[in-house]
């Protein structure tokens, strides 16, 4: 029984493996592994602001009875805030039973990137958002930055900052 289950899980993982959801934040195109994504909410709904949280945490939203926090990825990467428009989307990701909505400028597509086409990020700490990048995927001449979701959600960025300095 459990073996069959394991197989099913493996298969599911197989079909999801190497697939990435790409989206735009500013000018850059990012990708996250599809297995983390639970849904995409088109358009911005009412966000309830919360006091005493970092600026990039925009607040909470009601996702079919479940209350989830949303963060602005622009602000998370310390970029300038952009106004929300009808192309703005919330990508709901689920990591370790923690659901978080990511506000991104535009959701592009789901693409496959072979492992061989993903290279580790260059080991220079010049770019501030390197911390959130797991790898760089190449699709023909285009380049997608693959996000490390775990780090994106970690609240230890202060420690990381200390480390960088």
């Amino acid at each position, binding site marked *: 029984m459990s073996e069959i289950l394991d197989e099913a899980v493996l298969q599911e993982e197989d079909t999801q493996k190497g697939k990435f959801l790409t989206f735009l934040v500013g000018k850059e195109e990012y990708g996250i592994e599809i297995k983390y994504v639970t849904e995409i909410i088109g358009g911005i709904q*009412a966000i309830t602001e*919360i006091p005493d949280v970092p600026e990039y*945490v925009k607040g909470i939203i009601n996702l079919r*009875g479940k209350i989830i926090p949303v963060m602005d990825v622009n602000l998370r990467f310390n970029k300038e805030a952009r106004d929300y428009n009808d192309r703005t989307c919330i990508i709901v990701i689920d990591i370790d039973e923690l*659901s978080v909505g990511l506000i991104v400028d535009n959701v592009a597509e789901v693409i496959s990137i072979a492992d061989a086409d993903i290279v580790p990020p260059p080991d220079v700490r010049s770019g501030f958002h390197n911390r959130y990048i797991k790898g760089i995927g190449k699709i023909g001449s285009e380049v997608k930055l693959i996000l490390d979701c775990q780090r994106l959600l970690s609240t230890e960025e202060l420690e990381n900052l200390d480390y960088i300095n």
Partner: protein
Amino acid sequence: MDKSLSKEPMLEMFIFENLQLLEQLEQTILAHEKERCLENAVINEIFRIMHTIKGSAAMMMYDSISSLAHAIEDLFFYIREFHPDEMDYSKICDIVLDGIDFIKNEIGKLEEDQEADGDSSPFVENIEQYLLLIKEASANSNLINEAAARPAGLQKKFYISTSKSPPTENIKRYHALIYFTPGCEMENIRAFNLVHKLKDQADQIDYLPADIIENNDSVEFIRENGFAVIFTTHLQQEAINELFMKEAFIDSLDLRVMEDEEWEIEQLRARNQIILEEEPSVSNNEVREIGANLHSGSTRQSLISVNVDKLDRLMDMVGELVISETMVAFNPDLMTATKLENFHKATRQHRKIINEMQDLVMSIRMVPLSMTFRKMNRVVRDMSKKLKKNVEMVIIGEETEVDKNIIEHLSDPIMHLIRNAIDHGIESPEKRASLGKSPAARVYLEAKNEGGDVYIIIRDDGAGLNKDKILERARARGLMQKPDSNLSDGEIYSTILLPGFSTCEEISEFSGRGVGMDVVHKNIEEVGGAVLVDSTPGQGTTITMKIPLTLAIINGMRVKVGNSIYILPITSIKESFKAKPDNIIVDPDGNEMLMVRGECYPVLRLHQKFRIESALKEIAEGIIVIVQNDSGSICLLVDALLGEQQVVVKALPKFIGKIAGISACTLLADGRACLIIDVANLIILAKVK
């Protein structure tokens, strides 16, 4: 919860089932210890439970548990089969309860993902020795009085209740009345043969006359009245008919399906008759008891256990349904429509059903206090035995229902309070006698519903609290600052709730470390309740715990601050009004205060606290809400009050963490998320400032 989910389903099932069985067993033992006798049904039940535990423990390879269960099973097998006269009931109860404790402890370890490594061999040895003892004792008495052993032998022939499983759909009870061909002789042997054949196909076989082999008179009985058999089987009527008719010398067979109650009555009658034949003097009593047992078996509610997470999800879904219903019924697109009569009719009906559903979901989460209360029987029993005090517990209103989440917080406080009452409150029997009180002390455990709250009252008729001693101790520990003259009785008594307070000179096994009352206070406060202490010297102490019915839904006031909406719990709102500018006082540090009827309250501007730019800045323009709790009152400045609403409390997402001044969040009717203000926290913040 997460941990138990990740556990092996088998293990989870094992833990859950066995804990339930043990709980049931403990209740049975305690209920019958007082009567100083164990009826057949009880012995059977203990035997059956131990058998089940033994089986499942052996399957899960917990040898220590299974060997202990096996020993207890052996003991009760002997008691069931031979009915020894020389039995020390309290000793047997001790043995079983010790066994239960051991197994519970082991299962507790399993729950915490530890190895069940306890050694049960001392218990097993103890039980075996005791079994030997009663075997010897009854062997002696058997020699002296052989005749007395016969009824015991007869009783053995009942094939009831070893497997008293309720009938499922396919399994039916049948009643067969058989007449043998006249002159065939040896009717009793034939009848026995028949029963023997039936045993392969059916169970719960009962027959009349019951003593077919031993008693030669039964032949006469069968000739005159026929041989009646009651049994349950999954076979169809035709199949049974065939089975019976294969037997030789059967003259007639009357076979019919029985209804449940009928079966019981029949069984009762059967037993009644037999007992009448043996020993007319005790029959009435016994039959009544058997009747009661059978009855309690049949009225047992059918229950299933559901994961609380699922219920929470169901409640979320219903909450969503309510919101979406509002969105449909007040859809802006409807504004343009002119004739909506039928639509409104339909939505009203729709809303009514949804409301009922919401109530139902809430009621599913409500659990009666009876389990928690009954657990205390054991505490009282153990303590009165150890402390040699004669204490009786009276339970009132155990059917009162409380939200599942709250009940978990109640068990510890109630246990502490009962321990305290017995250890400190109740005097020794000698002292009680000298005071002219009845030697049997009483502890009342009462629950009742009043308004939106549940009251749990623990009352004893012991010595009461010693006011002077409490005061003295409170001062010695630096817990009391006010002068004596300013203290009310209630205030003095309440100091026993403070941490580090205990008037007991010695630390006993049960209480005296001064943590108990502190725990009570903290646990009850956690669920939003309060503890009240009252006492009359010489007559006893009453401790009342006031707790809300549920944590999941609160009555809230929607308040507007700038563009944001917050919920203030109604229970903490004292009053609200528009402030006059001349009542506002500003101290040199810039702290604002407000005079209301001669009293001065600090003002907390919510828009400042929550950094909301769009809010009104003038106190006189907004609304002042005075909120209060145990530690004081403050004024909150908000833009406007929007109205009252019942809201479903939801925890803030883990990612956000704890935020000062916010306790939880909820959803508004329009589907927006909204924050619930933590009044207690705001009051503390205002005071610190």
